[in-house]
């Protein structure tokens, strides 16, 4: 009797969508790590266990607590822009758009924020705004092409990624160090452009890159969650995404919504760049010849996060965590790309999540029907 009740409880527990998403994501992570471990074993069985532990430990490989905290800070600093890119992709995905152009919008945001900071010497909030607008404009181009000329957003996004890269390289060539390809250092040129930390850095052994960008990114994720699930705007965006014609029929401005969605998506990715470059963590190198991977990694975080803004917070952190962890591997034995390998396996596995949920649900239903049939 008790056993039966238990089973029912368990079933209803697993029939909750949130629980299913989390289970699925965890499963992806576990399988991904397992495959990564197998790869490590194949490369060199002797240090494989230690290597996978190193990846998982990331900053815990530092013996002192202070150092660990500091590098937890670094991981968070990089997780914030990743989260923003992921949110960008996610927001657009809700509206039925695959925003692979987030990578280029991120680049645009980097270009604008750094140019406003270094070229115009403006304070951080102005630079952040500039990044948002620049990313947004890149998004809008995709949106306009999509809404009025029916250009597939994936393709135009990819093209704009490259166009953005070359444009930003040219633009930032004006504010680079004289004898290096890096943009001028914010701390030396215009410290007012550095996002304030409001004392937050004290929690992370005074890691100077830790700023309010991190809590801001989380806040934005929560806001997006609210917007999508509880507001009129979210209702419209999702309707436009699922059924463009029905949205139009009901009087929504579906073209405007597509463009607006991509503007917001682009803005989010642009903000992401500001959240990294305006901490001074990284300087833009104007000789970059490939689009930074942040936007693409955002895809991973989005799907691993179960297409939910809150889930994406954790997913972004996780992906950054193992990526950073990869840099502590013994490079004489294991390539650091093992981390990328593991994260891409995880994204690949995310493709199976829908099927997994479907499978789970039909199992739950089948066993329920059986039970009900038995009760008859």
């Amino acid at each position, binding site marked *: 009797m008790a056993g039966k009740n238990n089973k029912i409880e368990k079933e209803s527990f697993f029939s909750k969508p949130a629980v299913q998403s989390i289970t699925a994501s965890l499963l992806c992570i576990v399988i991904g790590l397992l495959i990564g471990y197998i790869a490590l074993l194949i490369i060199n069985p002797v240090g494989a266990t230690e290597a996978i532990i190193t990846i998982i430990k990331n900053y815990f490989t530092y013996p002192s607590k*202070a150092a660990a905290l500091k590098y937890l800070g670094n991981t968070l600093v990089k997780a914030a822009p990743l989260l923003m890119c992921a949110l960008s992709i996610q927001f657009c995905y809700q509206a039925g758009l695959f925003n692979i152009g987030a990578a280029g919008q991120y680049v645009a945001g980097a270009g604008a924020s750094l140019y406003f900071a270094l070229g115009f010497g403006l304070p951080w909030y102005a630079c952040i705004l500039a990044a948002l607008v620049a990313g947004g404009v890149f998004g809008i181009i995709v949106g306009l092409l999509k809404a009025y000329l029916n250009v597939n957003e994936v393709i135009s996004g990819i093209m704009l990624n490259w166009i953005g890269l070359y444009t930003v390289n040219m633009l930032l060539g004006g504010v680079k160090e004289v004898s290096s390809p890096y943009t001028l250092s914010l701390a030396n040129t215009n410290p007012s452009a550095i996002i304030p930390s409001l004392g937050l850095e004290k929690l992370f052994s005074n890691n100077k890159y830790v700023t309010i960008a991190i809590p801001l990114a989380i806040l934005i994720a929560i806001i997006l969650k609210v917007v999508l699930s509880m507001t009129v705007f979210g209702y419209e965006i999702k309707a436009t995404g699922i059924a463009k014609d029905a949205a139009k029929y009901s009087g929504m401005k579906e073209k405007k919504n597509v463009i607006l969605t991509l503007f917001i998506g682009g803005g989010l990715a642009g903000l992401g760049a500001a959240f990294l470059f305006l901490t001074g963590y990284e300087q833009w190198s104007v000789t970059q010849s490939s689009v930074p991977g942040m936007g693409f990694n955002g895809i991973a975080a989005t799907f691993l996060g179960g297409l939910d803004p809150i889930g994406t917070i954790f997913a972004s952190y996780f992906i950054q965590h193992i990526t950073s962890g990869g840099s502590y591997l013994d490079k004489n034995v294991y390539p650091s790309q093992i981390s990328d390998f593991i994260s891409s396996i995880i994204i690949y596995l995310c493709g199976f999540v829908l099927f997994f949920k479907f499978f789970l649900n039909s199992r739950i239903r089948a066993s329920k029907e059986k039970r009900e049939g038995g009760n008859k």
Partner: protein
Amino acid sequence: GQTATTTTETTETTEATQETQATETTQETATETAEAGDKMMIAMVTDYGDITDQSFNQSTYEACKAFAEANNAEFTYYKPEGDSTAERVAMIDKAVSDGYNVIVMPGYAFAEAINETADMYPDVKFVALDVSEYDLEGEGSDFNSETYPNVFSAVYQEELPGYMAGYAAVKMGYTQLGFLGGMAVPAVIRYGYGFVQGADAAAKELGADVSINYAYGNQFYGDSDITAAMDTWYQGGTQVVFACGGGIFTSAGEAAGKVGGKVIGVDVDQSKTIDGMFEAGMTVTSAMKGLQATVNTLLAAIRDGQWDSYAGKILNLGLVSGDDTSLNYVGLPEDTTIWTESFTVDDYKKLVADMVSGAVTVSNDTTAAEPTAENVKINFQGNIK
């Protein structure tokens, strides 16, 4: 005023905690190091490229490794997660926390990282390559030996071997030259501008009609795009190309091979690599800088307890002797350069002597966006990619 204050404050606060942190770290590792005696623990942190970039990182790595093997020292290398100071600092922290006490860092990009870590780890010896005073301290530098008492850095006067190569090429009778840089980073630019000055000087001497195609590949490896550009050069008449940056010579060599063109190597004597890959006699000469010698010297000094004579200094390495070229940190390889009657090994030695004596001067000013010359026509093409 304002700016300076803020910066100092930040540094102070950071220092405070970092010191505690450093002490903790050293305490924990102390036991280990004690057991190993005063064993040298050498760690190299790579620049963004990896240790097989056929150039900078690779030479440094090989030198360190060879030294460590010969001297029974511990050696490993770290590669930062990305191209940023924060990530370079992370690797230095990691190396120190792993117990390494000599950190070798190739590349001007390490300046900021040194800034952040040097005084945190006063007992660790930092050996930097290519990091200049200005990289570290900026324009208004008042650098002295106390600024970074545990740091040594070597900067090379790449413009000198660049000059030699350019001068030699024109003297050897080549009139249509090419300069293919990797990325436009300081060292590459210095090589390039030196190359142009050398060719310019020789053209003036000979009264020859010389032209130079000048471009950067914007990457340190060759691919079909760059080969296409090189094909255009060689098939358009270019006779020799100074392939200046890591693996980018593959494109130059590929294109040269089709029309019997020539290549000039960089950093180390690349004749074996390039000729081996394409055809014997392709490499006219190489513009070299003594990375490995520097690394060897420094590591040996540390081993022999002579670190103090280097600590705190930034040396601008170039020519030291007009007589014995083997003592110099920069130059052309005497054995493998394909000397000609119009430019013999003795001509080369005379050139070196003149440079040492000051009879020949080479400017190291790289502030201009494009190289200029009076007697040579420069066809500047910017970045190929």
